[in-house]
């Protein structure tokens, strides 16, 4: 048995899987939860109180598009009443000035706005929603006018990563204090679209230089966080800061997940917030205890000097690429399965295959 973990710091509440966009890189699962199965307002409010009691400080309201919930302002208020810091992760679509006024009055702390691309034609192609970019810009203007703190999340993949300088400048012009330049991680719909999304090694190298230069250029004005694509790394990312150690996700139907892709791991038993308290789920839930500590690790992780730094990397990626959730993350150059990642990289084609847009009709 592993020692008792500390309390979580962050909770991601996937309020809904509904979304007007249908981005090919969406991290939602292929099997999207239907509206009828979404938790009602009062249950979310109770979960927010339980989260605060458990030690959660940061609440990320996400989706899908959280604005697809008509009760979003009530949820924001409930979260602030529970003393949580409330971050809204949105595409901006569906948030009229009147709704934004209501969210502000409810105590919304911060907005993270996704940026599909820096021009309308490309952004609407990537998001699969005509007119979406114009609506996003109008929303960003409303956020700025009200002085709501803004982070831009610029999603990078083979079709956008060459525009990285322009994306950073774009975020600064929107008044963002922070930009997350996040290369797509391959889970959910993004995994299904990997061949259309994976950037080349040259693209990644150029992007890293661009970020380094931009950090100097924007020092003191805008913070730039960069999430590189882990397929080109030598060591894996410390996924979630370690399984069941700093954060948790709640799916739209109340399923409590150690991360957004955890349901792709066969054999894990997930609790629902409608059946058990969040504290019981966090400390005693089978899924949360599955990969805590070191006992579950195989070699080369178990005796690795980095095991407490990267925790063996991502369990879902080990499952997706090596068909074994206990294996080292295959992006690690010590992993026996690294050749699988190298093979994927070597199979890149000059022309991108078409996107598979996310939808509720996926088979």
């Amino acid at each position, binding site marked *: 048995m592993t020692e008792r973990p500390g*309390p979580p*710091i*962050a909770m991601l509440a996937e309020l809904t899987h509904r979304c007007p966009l249908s981005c090919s890189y969406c991290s939602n699962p292929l099997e999207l939860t239907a509206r009828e199965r979404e938790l009602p307002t009062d249950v979310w409010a109770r979960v927010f109180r339980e989260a605060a*009691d*458990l*030690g959660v*400080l*940061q609440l*990320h309201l996400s989706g899908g598009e959280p604005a697809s919930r008509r009760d979003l302002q009530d949820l924001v208020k409930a979260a602030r009443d529970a*003393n949580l*810091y409330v*971050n809204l992760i949105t595409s901006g679509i569906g948030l009229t000035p009147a709704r934004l006024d209501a969210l502000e009055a409810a105590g919304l*702390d*911060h907005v*993270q706005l996704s940026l599909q691309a820096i021009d309308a034609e490309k952004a609407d192609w990537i998001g699969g929603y005509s007119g979406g970019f114009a609506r996003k810009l109008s929303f960003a203007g409303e956020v700025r006018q009200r*002085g*709501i*703190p803004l*982070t831009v999340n610029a999603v990078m993949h083979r079709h956008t990563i060459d525009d990285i300088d322009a994306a950073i400048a774009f975020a600064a012009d929107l008044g963002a*204090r*922070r930009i997350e330049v996040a290369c797509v991680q391959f889970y959910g719909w993004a995994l299904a679209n990997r061949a259309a999304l994976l950037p080349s090694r040259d693209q990644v190298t150029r992007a890293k230089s661009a970020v380094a230069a931009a950090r100097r250029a924007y*020092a*003191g*004005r*805008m*913070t730039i966080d960069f999430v590189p694509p882990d397929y080109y790394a030598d060591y894996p990312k410390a996924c979630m800061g370690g399984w069941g150690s700093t954060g948790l996700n709640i799916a739209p139907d109340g399923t409590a997940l150690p991360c957004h892709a955890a349901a792709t791991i066969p054999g894990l038993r997930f609790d629902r917030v409608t059946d058990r308290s969040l504290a019981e789920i966090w400390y005693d839930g089978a899924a949360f205890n599955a990969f805590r500590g070191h006992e579950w690790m195989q070699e080369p992780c178990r005796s690795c000097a980095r095991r407490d730094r990267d925790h063996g990397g991502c369990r879902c990626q080990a499952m997706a690429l090596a068909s074994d959730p206990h294996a080292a993350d295959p992006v690690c150059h010590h992993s026996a399965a690294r050749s699988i990642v190298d093979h994927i990289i070597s199979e890149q084609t000059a022309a991108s295959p078409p996107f598979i847009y996310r939808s509720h009709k996926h088979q």
Partner: protein
Amino acid sequence: MNADPVPLLPRGTRLHHDRVRDTMVLLVPERALLLDEIGTAILQEVDGKSTLAAISARLAERYGAPEPDVAADIRAFLDGLVAQRLVDYQ
């Protein structure tokens, strides 16, 4: 830059008592910074009205420490937060 600016917690940055861990934290966009006693003492003086010199004088008196040392520590601590856009100087 102004030699004696007035530091201010901008919107989106909040001092918060974490009752579960029994510590003060600075809640900022998408992060929570756990504060030690000194960080807490400094940020509790950041009221959007007091200059760095005024804050330094108050803390130097409270802790019985030499004011130039206290001022240098405060400046270094707040400069780090300003660089991350978590505190503003005005």
